[in-house]
């Protein structure tokens, strides 16, 4: 038995506090649902597959001290050394460390001398071992060969002939076509042949809208500093890390060598997102807690105020559960009103968030989940006072005046 009609009459006569709680719930829902989609977006961003065996990779930065250092020679010797180390799966040379927020990019075209309508992509200069070292998956075509490697001075300008690109980049620049054998142009008339496609590589910048567009070229240039990537056997990364600097310095002491595990770069790249998730979660939790306190307070206040009529209702035949249920149903009515108002407010707020701050669009599913959450918070808050109300003695009807 729900007593809905008299409950609504009674609520109508106490509409101000009821409405205040409704509005508080509405505001909470409007804020939380918009927070939740931002959190959701960040978590999805952080959780995106990188395509890279992040946990097994160590990045090494080698900086030559002498001005006229032969980096090309050093690379071959270092690669020989690294690849032979125990517990090392493979090693590669690269101009930039992936997922490190530093990298380079270029615009590529499908036609010679094309200047507009290109597709942006990260670009890495690396060697044929990059696929195995990064743990990438070749899904079409082939890898570079050692004979395709070009080693040269930065002052030289040489044309590169082949590239391996990511599937995403392939789909963007040659949508619906088989990219193997197709040319890439970087604004001049020289074609770079796409010889292979790797499934995924997130590139340099996790925040970039084109993250995942990546092209790899078989190039190593004679620069003052260079990066190596070393992939350890699973679970052996830290063990390998311990001796790397020592081994490389032993081979040639004329360099400054720094190592850092790739997962640390990734953590730094996502530090802002992680912080955002944390702060917004705390805000959402605090808000829910405050609104719950408000509901506890109001319910207790109402029950105290109505102690006499609760006693009278008990005297007239209400069971304990009739009394508890009354307050829980009343609370649900208030909450449902708040949720209705809050859903509307959430969608309106979201329109501005989308338009002015390019936040994600609030869809029905997260909104419904948040609405349910608000309902649960509200009912949970009302539960204890409502159960306590059931303990008011029917004798209250005759005892108090």
């Amino acid at each position, binding site marked *: *038995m729900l007593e809905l009609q008299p409950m609504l009459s009674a609520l109508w006569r106490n509409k101000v506090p009821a409405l205040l709680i409704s509005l508080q719930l509405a505001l909470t829902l409007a804020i939380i649902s918009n927070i939740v989609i931002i959190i959701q977006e960040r978590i999805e961003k952080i959780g995106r597959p990188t395509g890279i065996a992040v946990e097994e990779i160590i990045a090494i930065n080698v900086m030559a001290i002498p001005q006229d250092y032969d980096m090309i020679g050093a690379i071959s010797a270092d690669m020989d050394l690294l690849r032979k180390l125990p517990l090392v799966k493979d090693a590669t040379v690269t101009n930039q460390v992936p997922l490190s927020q530093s990298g380079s990019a270029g615009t590529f075209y499908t036609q010679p001398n094309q200047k507009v309508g290109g597709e942006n992509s990260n670009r890495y200069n690396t060697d044929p071992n990059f696929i195995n070292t990064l743990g990438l998956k070749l899904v079409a075509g082939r890898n570079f060969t050692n004979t395709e490697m070009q080693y040269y001075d930065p002052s030289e300008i040489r044309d590169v002939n082949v590239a391996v690109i990511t599937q995403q980049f392939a789909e963007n620049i040659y949508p619906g076509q088989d990219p193997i054998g197709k040319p890439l142009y970087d604004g001049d008339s020289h074609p770079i042949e796409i010889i292979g496609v790797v499934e995924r590589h997130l590139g340099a910048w996790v925040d970039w809208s084109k993250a995942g567009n990546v092209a790899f070229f078989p190039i190593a240039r004679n620069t003052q500093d260079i990066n190596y990537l070393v992939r350890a056997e699973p679970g052996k990364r830290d063990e390998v890390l311990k001796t790397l600097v020592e081994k490389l310095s032993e081979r040639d002491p004329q360099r400054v060598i720094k190592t850092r595990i790739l997962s640390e770069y990734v953590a730094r790249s996502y530090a802002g997102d992680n912080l955002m998730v944390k702060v917004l979660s705390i805000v959402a939790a605090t808000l829910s807690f405050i609104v719950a306190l408000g509901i506890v307070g109001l319910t207790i206040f109402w029950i105290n105020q109505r102690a006499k*009529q609760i006693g*009278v*209702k008990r*005297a007239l035949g209400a069971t304990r559960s009739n009394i508890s249920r009354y307050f829980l149903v009343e609370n649900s009515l208030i909450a449902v009103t708040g949720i209705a108002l809050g859903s509307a407010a959430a969608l309106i707020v979201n329109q501005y968030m989308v338009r002015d701050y390019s936040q994600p669009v609030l869809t029905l599913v997260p909104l419904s989940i948040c609405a349910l959450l608000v309902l649960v918070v509200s009912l949970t808050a009302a539960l204890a006072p409502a159960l306590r109300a059931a303990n008011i003695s029917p004798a209250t009807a*005759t005892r108090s005046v």
Partner: protein
Amino acid sequence: MLKMHNVRKSFRTDTIETHALRDFSLEVKEGEFVSVTGPSGSGKTTFLNIAGLLETPTGGQYLLDSEDVSNLNDRQRSRLRNEKIGFIFQGFNLIPDLNLFDNIDVPLRYRGFNAKERRKRIEKVLEQVGLSARAKHLPAQLSGGQQQRVAIARALAGEPRFLLADEPTGNLDSLMARQVMELLEFINEWGTTIVMVTHDPELARRAHRNIQIVDGQVCDLRTLTEQPEAATA
């Protein structure tokens, strides 16, 4: 109808134990109109509360309609209150947020009657207490006498066999008190057993029988119709 044997009720607070009723024995027959008088604090309300299943006795035996009601659970007691017993309080105890119609509806909803049945009963009792035209009014819009008539209507709507009234005229002036008393007498004539606590000796005398409670015990039993002169408390 009601039979109490050696009923005891004590209230324990941190410091003292109050014996509100001690070895309280009383029988009320079907159809009787019993008035209860006694000094303040003597245990009259406690007796009514136990009789009406609002409180449980600390000891002794209470038979309502020959059924021992000492060991019923809350649900059973609520049901008995709802079906067999009507309450009238000194302070009327109407629910201020509900209009008269909805106030009378309260016990009927707990009874589980359908809307049609409830409406029929509410209209009937409002008519009986002469307030049909006021069904949509709030209690605050009525005089004390009118409020008490609504409270009586609420108590009657479930057609209880047993009506308990705790100083029903205590907050009313004498004219209104007399109207309420006439209403109760009328109800009693139609077969409802009534136990009424009152401070008004005149009203007490109009009952079939008056019992005096002093210090938690029935002090004196006399049938007013037989010895009307001696009834003044």
